[in-house]
């Protein structure tokens, strides 16, 4: 280890935040850029499954809530891209990589949203799983990322409660059809939500270095267990079930046991073979490529304006 690396690691170990201006190992920078950009892309792509229902929200209240949530997500994307740019990465370049398929986003957004109940389930399970990850990331070693996480977590928790409330209202006051909608939605999103924590620890080779650098602070399996342990009581409170016959409390472990994840599906979706991979990327690519003339016009106009001001000065 070089003296710089040693000093860096000491700071990390002492829980001193690394800032943009500080020296950092190239691997640390790269890992962070990859992780933050994936996270930012996920916020943006994550707007699409919600956008799919925002035009069909069933009441003014729910429509406004969903719109506010989507707006927050665009905001999260912006903070995160900014945090990423402090590491010298370029937002447009990273977005190009997303569109070319060389950088990923959370696979969960490759699942379709098929009923209004999915707006509840996405809030409760998907944002819920994200929060479990993000709560830990509030203490991540890189300052700008940590601060973005603190801000984002607060809003995400709000979204999660709102999502849960959608389901709870439907289960408590809804018709049989609405209740069925909720259960069907949970059936579809349960396993994909568990997959959000990534492969199991023995299949996750990059994790160890990330743990040492305190980019990552808990292992995939630890986070997944935390999520399940907090989620099952909420599930029961709803009066719903999980599509997992092996899910049950293990007194000895003090945790819920659960069935084996379908890793084939996980890797399929990751490889591009998910229900909506093609549509999601196409939509984003069309938006950005189709908007090139808009951004160009804004740039040219700003230059003209600046020129005029200079001429006037």
């Amino acid at each position, binding site marked *: 280890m070089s003296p710089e690396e040693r000093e860096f690691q000491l700071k990390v170990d002492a829980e001193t935040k690394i800032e943009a201006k500080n020296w950092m190992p190239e691997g640390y920078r790269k890992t962070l850029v990859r992780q933050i950009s994936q996270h930012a892309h996920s916020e*943006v792509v994550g*707007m699409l499954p919600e956008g799919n229902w925002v035009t*069909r929200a069933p009441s003014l209240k729910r429509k406004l809530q969903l*719109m506010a949530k989507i*707006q927050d997500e665009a905001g999260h994307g912006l903070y995160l891209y900014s945090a990423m740019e402090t590491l010298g990465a370029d937002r447009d370049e990273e977005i190009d990589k997303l569109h070319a398929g060389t950088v990923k986003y959370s696979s969960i957004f490759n699942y379709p949203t098929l009923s209004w109940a999915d707006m509840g389930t996405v809030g409760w399970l998907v944002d819920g799983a994200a929060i479990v990850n993000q709560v830990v990331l509030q203490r991540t070693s890189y300052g700008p990322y940590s601060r973005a996480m603190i801000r984002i977590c607060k809003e995400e928790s709000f979204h999660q409660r709102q999502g849960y409330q959608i389901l709870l209202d439907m289960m408590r006051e809804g018709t049989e059809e609405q209740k069925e909608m909720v259960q069907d939605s949970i059936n579809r999103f349960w396993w994909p939500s568990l997959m959000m924590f990534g492969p199991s620890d023995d299949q996750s080779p990059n994790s160890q270095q990330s743990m040492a650098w305190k980019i990552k602070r808990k292992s995939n399996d630890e986070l997944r267990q935390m999520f399940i342990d907090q989620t099952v009581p909420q599930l029961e409170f709803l009066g719903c079930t999980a599509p997992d016959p092996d899910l049950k409390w293990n007194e000895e472990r003090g945790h819920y046991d659960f069935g084996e994840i379908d890793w084939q599906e996980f890797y399929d979706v990751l490889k591009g073979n998910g229900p909506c991979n093609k549509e999601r990327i196409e939509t984003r690519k069309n*938006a950005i490529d189709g908007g090139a*003339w*808009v951004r160009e016009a804004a740039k040219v106009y700003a230059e*003209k304006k600046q020129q005029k001001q200079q001429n006037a000065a």
Partner: protein
Amino acid sequence: MSKTMTQQEALQEYLLRLADSDMILGQRLCELCGKAPALEEEMALMNVALDLVGQARNWYEYAAELINDGRSADDLAFKRDANRYRNALMVEQPNGDYAVTMGRQFFFDAWHYFTIAALTQAPDERIASIAAKAAKEIQYHLRRSSEWVKRFGDGTEESHQRMQTAVDDLWRFTGEMIEADEVEQQLFKAGIGPDPEQLAADWRGLVNEVLTEATLTPPPEDAWMYRGAKVGHHTEHLGFILAEMQFLPRAYPDAKTW
């Protein structure tokens, strides 16, 4: 319009026009979710849409109280068919390219701005207070949309061309916005609504100013205008918007909550 409209009826009608225009434009902006030309625009569009649907809710709630036939604000939004909707034709036009989106927004914002400014002075406190809150939001909408019209008009050759086409194509929907019918005349006389002549003059003044600064050619004032929204005769677009927007409340009529 009925010849014997009471002031209360005129007011209900007028509130529905305000609410419906907000709602439908908000809905059109929702369609753009994930499809805007930049992430900053995603945020801004959803922000504007959120303001509009929020304003719609306020107007619907007041309208529902006045109508007082058991229908809620949600019923007014989600259970009326196109012939009962009273939004301006402008706001139901498709998003088109971003020049159309912004041109439509600008023409509407300009009308909205002067209308709501007048309503902040209404003797009806409920109206005045809804309008006061909305006025601040609309100030931002108008600044934003007029800025985009200028960017496009005075940006690149392509953006200028697109913006001029959008202005020309949308122009025929501007007439009915600034042309008062009996309802609006009656409310003005009652001291509630804006002065129609003043509104038209203000709107024309601002639109001319912005288009000129944007190096665009304002279409002729005496151009042919499309009318009908105020009596529920819309363009063919509205039916499709409502089919999508109202699907759930209509498909699940027994659902009491969502």
